[in-house]
């Protein structure tokens, strides 16, 4: 039996979070840049030095040590969005964490919602208007945003404990999830490979044997399935065409390659003395790990209505889009 789709209440909540999120105007960017430049000047650092140092010091330690940490990458199509437009998994991770924390306070978190994540987010480092106001040259603004967020992401992954949940189907090569967070989680003695769980089932278009053997959390937490010329690549179709003993050899080589790569992984934060090993018994409130298909329940189309075909799913009751009424983009 296949996993259920992402629940509609999570989708609605995530859409509301998306609608409330708007890029900085030039005036906001000016004020943000002013704060950054003034703070950097006060401590005698350049802007990049100041921002990188700040990312190294921001607090991403959970207040509840048993909190479940969420990670995310990329986007998911949503039936309420026009064709071609998608909902970032960041908002789904945020909506999931909010929903779990309403049930059990302090049971779930995601990077951008931590104290450190909010502080770094307030700097709007991905905004070109902020780059311009800071007078960052060429790629300097992008390099700064990427390195600051990678630093915070790595520290967030190193501070995680027990089971963690990844809101993505797979890890695309070159993303922060693949290059920074998964290595940090695999080598975190309080998480480890066994505790990395994917919220979404493996892609439907993989052959059944690939879904069964490559679709496990452990393989998806190590391999990438997109780019042949990048390390740790496994092609699901080629894999499925191999006999069993060759498939075993592929997985063995993958584990060896990952072990070799992880051996050179350098932690940014030293592990706490006397910490328990991965898989140790959890105590305190921890959110359950979702297991969903990556997508939302398809809506019946107008053309389908009035035909004898059964609807794909019952229409959802109309619900408010959180925040939309008061936080639209205002453009136009």
């Amino acid at each position, binding site marked *: 039996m296949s996993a259920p789709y992402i629940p509609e209440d999570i989708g609605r909540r995530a859409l509301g979070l998306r609608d409330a*999120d*708007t890029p900085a105007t030039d005036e906001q960017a000016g004020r943000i840049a002013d704060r950054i430049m003034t703070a950097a000047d006060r401590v005698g650092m350049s802007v990049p030095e100041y921002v990188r140092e700040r990312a190294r010091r921001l607090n991403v330690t959970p207040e509840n040590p048993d909190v479940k940490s969420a990670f995310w990458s*990329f986007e998911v199509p949503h039936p309420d969005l026009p064709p071609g437009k998608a909902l970032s998994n*960041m908002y789904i991770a945020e909506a999931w964490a909010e929903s779990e924390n309403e049930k059990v306070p302090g049971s779930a978190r995601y990077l951008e919602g931590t104290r450190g994540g909010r502080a770094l987010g307030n700097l709007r480092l*991905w905004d070109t208007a902020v780059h311009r106001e800071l*007078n960052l040259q060429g790629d300097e603004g992008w390099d700064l945003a990427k390195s600051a967020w990678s630093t915070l992401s790595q520290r967030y992954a190193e501070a995680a404990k027990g089971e963690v949940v990844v809101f993505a189907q797979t890890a695309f090569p070159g993303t922060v999830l693949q290059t920074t967070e998964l290595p940090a989680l695999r080598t975190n003695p309080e998480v480890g490979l066994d505790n990395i769980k994917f919220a979404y089932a493996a892609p439907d278009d993989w052959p059944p044997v690939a879904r069964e053997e490559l679709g496990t959390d452990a393989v998806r937490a190590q391999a990438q399935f997109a780019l042949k010329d990048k390390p740790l690549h496994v092609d699901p179709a080629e894999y499925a065409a191999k006999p069993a003993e060759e498939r075993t050899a592929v997985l063995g080589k993958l584990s060896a390659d990952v072990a070799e790569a992880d051996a050179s992984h350098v932690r940014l934060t030293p592990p706490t003395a006397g910490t328990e090993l991965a898989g140790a018994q959890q105590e305190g409130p921890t959110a359950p790990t979702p297991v969903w298909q990556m997508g939302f329940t398809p809506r019946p189309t107008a053309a389908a209505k009035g035909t004898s075909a059964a609807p794909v799913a019952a229409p959802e009751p109309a619900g408010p889009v959180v925040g939309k009424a008061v936080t639209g983009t205002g*453009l136009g």
Partner: protein
Amino acid sequence: MPTVTEERPPQALAEELRGLTHVDWPAVWAGPPNPGQALDDWCALFGWRPLTVERVLRVRTSTGADLTLEPLVSGGWSPVRSVTFTVRHLNADTQDENDLVLEQTADVWPAYEAAAREVLGAPEFSGTWDDPAFPEPPNDRHWLPSRDFRLGRRDPYRMAVWSAKDPEGPVTVLTAKSGGVTRRGVGKRGVMINVHCYPQDSL
């Protein structure tokens, strides 16, 4: 002496703008697919090559410009709010040169505006930061800065605006914008000549 850290000649600006006249703008505003073959194919439709895999998509055009496709919301890269690239970046070497970089940018501005006119025709507005006809933003989320911000910071120092005849085409904005200096005047100023393309319904 101020230092030019990035410079593409005015003719290169004209070439990039000519390339953008062939872009399927509704497809660009809708946003790119996730990375992989689908993204490569999407970029290839416009003669672009992707440079990034997440957060903000940047692409290189066949004529060498690095375009930034700024998303409307963070966390993903669709829909696209604007397409932006820089053709010139001049930096003060000392704070004493902060006014000089504005003056030197003003000296080269007419050549860049003329190159844009070659492709886009006469602009619907062209002027300086204190021009009485400088357009005002229709709301506080608009890409045009408020009057107070513009006059208080002399920013944008120069601006020219063209709207495509096709309603699905872009509003193209050539600006000379400065940064690097706090409100109290601390820091070394840099001035960039940038091109921004926005959907017309955001004007």
